[in-house]
């Protein structure tokens, strides 16, 4: 491109896309490391490492090419583009090994991209029909994609989203998030490293506790591979499992031990940092944490009650365990299952459907709407009821003692409304598209699948249930799911911003 041409383009486009591409290139170059590691595992397991080596080579070349763009200063505008592009790039790179390996349903490019997007967005919805058709390396790659997705959202949430006015993300600032993070370390880079450290530490702890259970004879079926693959997808609240039976393939002890890791993965990592520094009061005094824990307890009691009434399980322990596990798994947006909850009574199933819309705490790896937004909605609604009786009263909404800005409350209402609208539209699309393609999709399955993908949960109900898969949906529906998993993970707004003409012009 000649200098004159470049000047003309720059005049029209006000976003520094070169810098964005250059940074995306850097991320792609970094992806070579996990790709090579997976190739190594393939060699050890006696599987062909070629798909991963080839992908690594391609990624390196493309990444280096992008990286050659000149880097300038990053502004808010570039932030939106980077967030959107990074997730897209990892999803595309992640899909390549599946296609190259060419096994089972993952051989089709759409399915490969679905699986990869579901991985990196920490969704956990799968199109794998036969789990044995894929080698260990492919299963490990699925887990690694989710682990990277979880780490990415932690870093992005702190470093980028909190700087942009993404609905509710500024709230992290009022909610003691960014401010305290800034206090503990001066730079975003250091903060990201600290949070990443906690994330890695939790993952390591889970691997060790699974292995310990195996060694103690409480989970004889646990292998090192299982421990690592599940630790990668539990702490990231993502939910892929190399086993067709998900967590149902393991002993009750292993299932019990996994619950706190999913729960912690959906807890605000900044508050976890203070916990590791010997200051549990910040976590325990946080309004949002109490709300989150309260919602988990309430929905668990409800589910256990319905299961007990319908006589699903004979004894008390399995009733409690399965109720708690499923509620935590769905609410934290992980998506494991210890049992096929499809066969539960409608009441219990609908409680799980309700849990899909909660999500865990902001500032964690969780997806969905998040308890932070819900607690603000609840508090501001209660405030509105109060001012109904006392029209002159001024009553700010407080979160853990700090005042929430009225503008932020408005953004949060807008976000919740937007989420519900997108969810309804997606459901309607799923049903109509299935009718067009002649596939039978009942309404509850459509509702479940729309929520499970757009809110990044994973398993839904019906054929897309915990022991089912998404491969039966028409191609167009699967493509819509791919787009909406991506949109949902980066909190809708950055994508919508990219679609406004004003974003690209001055």
């Amino acid at each position: 491109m000649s200098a004159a041409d470049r000047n003309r383009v720059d005049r029209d486009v006000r976003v520094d896309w070169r810098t964005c591409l250059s940074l995306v290139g850097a991320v792609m170059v970094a992806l070579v490391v996990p790709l090579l590691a997976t190739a190594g595992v393939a060699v050890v397991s006696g599987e062909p490492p070629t798909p991963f080596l080839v992908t690594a080579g391609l990624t390196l070349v493309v990444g280096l090419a992008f990286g050659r763009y000149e880097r300038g200063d990053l502004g808010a505008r570039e932030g939106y583009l980077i967030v959107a592009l990074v997730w897209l790039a990892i999803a595309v790179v992640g899909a390549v090994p599946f296609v190259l390996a060419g096994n089972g349903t993952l051989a089709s490019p759409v399915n490969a991209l679905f699986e990869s997007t579901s991985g990196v967005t920490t969704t956990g919805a799968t199109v794998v029909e036969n789990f044995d058709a894929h080698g260990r390396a492919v299963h490990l790659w699925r887990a690694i994609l989710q682990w990277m997705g979880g780490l990415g959202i932690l870093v992005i949430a702190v470093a980028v989203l909190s700087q942009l006015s993404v609905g509710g993300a500024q709230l992290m600032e009022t909610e003691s998030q960014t401010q305290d993070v800034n206090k503990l370390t001066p730079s975003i880079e250091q903060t990201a490293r600290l949070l990443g450290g906690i994330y890695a530490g939790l993952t390591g702890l889970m691997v060790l506790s699974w292995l310990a259970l195996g060694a103690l004879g409480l989970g004889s079926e646990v292998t090192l591979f299982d421990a690592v693959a599940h630790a990668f997808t539990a702490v990231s609240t993502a939910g892929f499992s190399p086993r067709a039976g998900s967590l149902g393939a393991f002993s009750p002890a292993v299932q019990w031990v996994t619950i706190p890791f999913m729960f912690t993965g959906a807890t605000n990592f900044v508050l976890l940092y203070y916990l590791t520094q010997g200051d549990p009061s910040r976590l325990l005094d946080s309004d949002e944490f109490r709300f989150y824990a309260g919602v988990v307890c309430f929905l668990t009691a409800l589910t256990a009650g319905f299961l007990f009434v319908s006589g699903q399980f004979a004894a008390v322990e399995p009733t409690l365990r399965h109720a708690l596990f499923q509620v935590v798994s769905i609410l934290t947006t992980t998506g494991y299952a210890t049992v096929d909850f499809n066969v539960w009574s409608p009441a219990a199933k609908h409680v799980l459907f309700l849990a899909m819309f909660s999500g865990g705490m902001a500032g964690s790896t969780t997806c969905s709407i998040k308890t932070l937004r819900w607690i603000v909605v609840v508090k501001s609604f209660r405030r509105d009821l109060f001012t109904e009786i006392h029209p002159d009263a001024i009553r700010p909404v407080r979160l853990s003692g700090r005042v929430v800005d009225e503008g932020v409350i408005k953004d949060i209402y807008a976000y919740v409304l937007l989420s519900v609208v997108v969810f309804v539209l997606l459901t309607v699309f799923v049903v109509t598209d299935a009718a067009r393609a002649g596939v039978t999709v009942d309404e509850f399955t459509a509702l479940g699948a729309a929520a499970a993908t757009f809110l990044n949960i994973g398993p839904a109900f019906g054929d897309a249930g915990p022991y089912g898969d998404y491969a039966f949906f028409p191609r167009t529906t699967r493509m819509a799911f791919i787009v909406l998993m991506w949109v949902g993970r980066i909190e809708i707004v950055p994508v919508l911003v990219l679609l406004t003409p004003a974003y690209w012009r001055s």
Partner: protein
Amino acid sequence: MRVVIVGAGEVGSTIAESLAGSHDVVVVDVDTERVESLTYSLDVLPVEGDGTDVDTLAEADVGDADMLIASTDDDETNIVTCGAAKVLGDAFTIARTKSPKYLKAWERAQGAFGVDFMVCTDLLTAEAIVGLAGLPTAQDVDTFADGLVQMTEFEIPAESPVAGQTVAEADRFDSLTFVGIIRGDEVIVPQGTTELRGGDDVVAIGSPESMRLFSSSIAPEEQGPEDVVIVGGGEIGFQTARLLEERGFTPRLVEQDEDRARWLAEHLPNTTVLNSDATDQDLLERENVGLADVVVAALENDQQNLLGTLLAKRMGADRAIAVVDTGNFTELFEAVGIDVAVSPRKVTAEEITRFTRARRAENVAIIEGDQAEVLEFEVDADSILVDRPIRESAVDFPESVVIGAITRDGEFVTPRGDTVVREGDHVVVFTETDVLETVTEQL
């Protein structure tokens, strides 16, 4: 003693008035007329000029002064004046501030800004209001010895069961001493046989708990107040609400300015802030202000405070406390039905006056109409009290002096005839104003 007072406003002239008789007083003010009118009524030396200007201070001979009191209406001016005075000499500097923010900094490092003592008018006023709000029938409340001892002036209503009882009958509380009865213009030192009459003001000294008990024996039908409404969200209103919150109340606060109301709501988590005009009858009815136990008016001026509290009283509020800036209005307010009028000027003067005594009292409370004072002293080796039972030393000091309370090592001691006072004890003493000089020397 040579005292320089900077600022001849309400507070400055009150202080000048009380000091002019016994000290050399210099008054500095930028306003020529104010300084002139002061010299006509008081024996003070006027200096016209800006107190923050070193030349002006030099003209007032601050270098040789023993004390400088900066009492203008502007916080920053007062602080800078003290700082400038420190450059010229070693006068003891007192700054009056309205906002507690400077007090916060000063309390961390006393002597900061070149200020030796800082008096925060609005905070003191709020403390006085909160003390009064908690005690039905109390007219004046002051705390001594870090809050261990409380002085309260109670008005005995005619229908009170206490009216008609003798002091011995009414005083059923161990850690409480009746130190004075004010009947009209007369101060009576109570004896066991003295009869309490309706309309008397009884001055009692004792533990805060005993004050609450006595208060409920004066007015048994009055429960402790729960519902407090504050009108006016200025600094005094804000501090009052804050202090009430600290004591577990959930007050309501009415503020007219929307931005200020929002600010207040954000800083007072347990207060319901209402954004409205406090004299709007619709609002008062909508919010059931008539059912309130206590209504506090801390609006911008005396007229509004009077109107606000009268409206609330008319609607049925139990008790009305109004802030009165103009000292002379105190009695007028109380005459038209306001239960207590609190004057920021008076509470400020009480704080500052103690530094001007020959021996510095730890705390001073001036009883209504300046007829008597309650003082707190630390007993030193020269005191006539030291190492003697009170029965013996009482013979040596004037009759109109009563020892109300003693604190020893942070513990409350009820003074009885055989109590032996030790060096280092804090005594809280009631004394008539005319024997003040003698008492301060003896004790």
